[in-house]
């Protein structure tokens, strides 16, 4: 089996996780910028984090022959503070030309507040001006439906953004259709409690098709599983999906979306 992990927060993981993922067939890892579990006190904290994502983490992955890519932004959980968000937005352009930066993400909403919307709009504008791909985090639990609608509407209203260059992550059964109908890609996150189980992810593929959709583990500092994607691929096999269908979902699809950024290259290519 081969697969691409399109959403993993490796800065929060131990080196053994790289080895496990590689052993399971991982061909590349993509790491969106996110919340550290605590609020950073200044833009300097983000500067260091962006250096970690673009310099240190690719080196750590390279020890295992794994290409490591990243996405940059200030995440929605820290976007309520507009002053901080503006400072971080000013920092981002200097990193965008770095060789492993794929785009802007994971932007989006958390509690669906006005300030979060303002910061989301600025990120979308930044992506449009710099012709960047966009990776979006949708809110959790009771906030997901409303947040996904607000996000999709906001991005659709910016004529400069091509929907096929946007992935809306953490979809569930009540949001996947509206994302696909908007022409965007949908990410299913295999994460205990708050997101999607392997069985439900496979259900969604069976119900909504396998065209613009991928799976990711979103492993981070919380209870999460870096091997969630290959484990779900094994469950797909039990469910009667053939090798080509599995390969499309876990390898070809992320490859197709991510290759829209010319910097995304796999080792064997």
């Amino acid at each position, binding site marked *: 089996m081969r697969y691409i992990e399109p959403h993993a927060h490796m800065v929060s993981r131990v080196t053994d996780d790289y080895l496990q993922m590689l052993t399971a067939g991982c061909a590349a890892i993509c790491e969106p910028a996110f*919340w550290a579990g605590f609020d950073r006190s200044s833009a300097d904290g983000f500067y260091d984090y962006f250096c970690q994502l673009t310099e240190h983490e690719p080196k750590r992955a390279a020890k295992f022959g794994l290409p490591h890519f990243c996405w940059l932004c200030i995440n929605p*959980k820290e976007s*309520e503070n507009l002053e901080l968000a503006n400072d971080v937005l000013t920092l981002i352009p200097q990193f965008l030309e770095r060789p492993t930066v794929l785009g802007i993400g994971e932007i989006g909403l*958390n*509690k*669906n*507040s*006005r*300030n*979060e*919307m303002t910061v989301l709009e600025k990120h979308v504008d930044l992506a449009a001006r710099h012709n960047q791909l966009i990776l979006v985090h949708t*809110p*959790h*639990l*009771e*906030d*997901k*439906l*409303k947040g996904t*609608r*607000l996000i999709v509407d906001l991005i659709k209203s910016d004529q400069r953004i091509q929907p096929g260059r946007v992935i809306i992550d953490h979809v*569930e*059964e*009540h949001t996947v259709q509206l994302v696909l109908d908007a022409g965007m890609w949908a990410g299913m996150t295999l994460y205990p409690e*708050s997101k999607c189980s392997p*069985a*439900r992810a496979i*259900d969604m593929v069976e119900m909504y098709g396998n065209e613009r959709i991928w799976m990711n583990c979103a492993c981070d500092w919380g209870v999460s599983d870096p091997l969630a994607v290959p484990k779900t691929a094994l469950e797909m096999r*039990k*469910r*009667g999906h053939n090798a080509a269908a599995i390969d499309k979902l876990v390898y070809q699809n992320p490859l197709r979306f991510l290759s829209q950024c010319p910097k995304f290259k796999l080792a064997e290519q």
Partner: protein
Amino acid sequence: MTRRQILDLYFMDARWKLIDLAAFIDRVERAEGEEDFRMQAFRTALLELSKGNKERAKQVLLAFSDPTTQPIAKAMGKGAVGAYKKTDSN
């Protein structure tokens, strides 16, 4: 897959989860005090299971979701609790 094959694959797991769910409701009802909006949403969501709708997972998720459409004035924290609580401001 046939219905029989799906049952072979998932029945024991679903049975275990259903008993766990029943035990959870018993546990809530054994405990002192009032239920809150979370349990009310939970009971509404439970009704979706027996309606014969083919999109039960979606309907359950909708039962827990914030139905409003406008951004809130300010985020008063970061967490979500799993069910929508109607307040005076929304």
